């Protein structure tokens, strides 16, 4: 993760110190751990949420492989 932060530091010209790079890398690592369980959920056939609307609420979600 530290290398990824360094790449961003160069691209965006943040001029981060080594200490700041470590801090951001640590935050990014923690976030990656937080997101891990999302990939353990079976989302087969579930389309992304885009808009909450009563009219759409009861429509079935698209099921992959079913016609």
């Amino acid at each position, binding site marked *: 993760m530290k290398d*990824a932060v360094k790449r961003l530091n160069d691209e965006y*010209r943040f001029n981060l110190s080594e200490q700041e790079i470590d801090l*951001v890398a640590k*935050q990014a690592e923690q*976030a990656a751990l937080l997101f891990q369980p*999302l*990939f353990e959920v079976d989302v087969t056939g*579930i389309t992304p949420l*885009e808009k909450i609307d009563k009219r759409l609420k009861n429509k079935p979600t698209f099921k992959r492989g079913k016609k």
Partner: protein
Amino acid sequence: MKVLDLEGLTITTIASLIRKKQISPLELTRRYLDRIKELNPVLNAYLAITEEGAVAAARRAEREISKGKYRGPLHGIPFSIKDNIATKGVTTTAGSKILSDWVPDIDATVVERLKEAGAVILGKTNMHEWAKGSNSINPFYGTSRNPWDKTRIPGGSSGGAAVAVAASLCLAALGTDSAGSVRNPASLCGTVGLKPTYGRVSCFGGVEGTGGYTVNHFGILTKTVEDCALVLRQIAGHDPKDPLSSDEPVPDYTKRSRIPVKGMKVGIIKGYFDECLTGDVRRAFQDALRVLRSLGMKIQDITIPHMDLVPALHAGSSRPEANSDLDQYLRTRPRDFSPGLLYSLIAGLLIPAPVYVTAQRVRRLLCQEFDAAFESVQGIVAPTLFSAAPTIEDCQRGYIEADGKRINLQDRAGNFLTRYTIPFNVTGLPTISICCGFSSSSLPIGMQISAPPFQEGTLFRMAHAYERAAGWYKRKPPL
């Protein structure tokens, strides 16, 4: 003309007096402006006071009403607007250094709609930098102070808005809520705070980068539930300028809020809302449930299987969205963000696209689980926060001590001050926070009530019944 006790005023009580010409909108506005001048140096609720515009609007209201052209219950009513909502000709900073001198040439749709109703805009309220936090400790504009105890935070990011309502520096405030930014400060300052259904209120004119797209909502802070219902009726409805706004009809919420609640069922989600709950909040919440039961409501446990994923869903949605909006400033003015926010935004750049898309897919599952729960209950109740207002010092050191325990305000799953509010941002469900008691240190405590999409009327009905039965809204901060 009547003598005005600003601390005891609500929109509902004063609107009829304005209509009957027993109260002058100009006099009312001047009284609020005087009170702001007296208290704002201490409370730091307002960043800009729009005295000239407010007096002109009040004068116009007075002229119209005297000619019999009464526009409705918001005519002549003084409002404040959070500083990430565009106001034509008035600086809109979003609590940031980067926008410190930005003057929009448009009004946000909500501001337009308030002006159409004859409301008076008193000024722009202080907030957490870019609305990215919930303590309103702002390095560029100073910290808004909680009127119940000035050593404490008011919450945020709409901290100034909640302070302005609680301290009677306006009758109602508009804020924004992408993680709890209306409900959190409402809870900590003892006001009502509504986050409507996603799409119920147009977000056109919100400063980009202060809320993302799929979790952000414009909301309302008032002293009472009835006042909140009046304001929602005026600002809700489809807006062609906001393609995400809904064309669902807007009902008369005030009438609905007065229907008795006997026989209504509310659910409690076990587990998620118990984490680190302080004794004060637990007691206040249990007492509130007793009041709901005494009103004839039934309370039952409900299950939301993927509830524990809410922090990941929220972060996986809101952080990439905020990053996409703020990218130009990250490239050109990175050091004009406060260091803490800059680090968080840079870390946000490292969130992979599959996280964002997967989060949206799991969000749909979560919404379906909430829909299923709403088949057996009409509302969900939960504490708004795990504790009453922390001190400014607590926030600076990063933890509070309660019941002999140390509770970190930030953990791996994000900001703990918004842990209880974010479920209703990722699901877009309408949710209201109302005062449900006071801590042993005499600080307000909030309870949330949530309902199915576009059922704000149901929310108001339950919240109004509780508010009248419990009577906490009558308490005033010691100013």
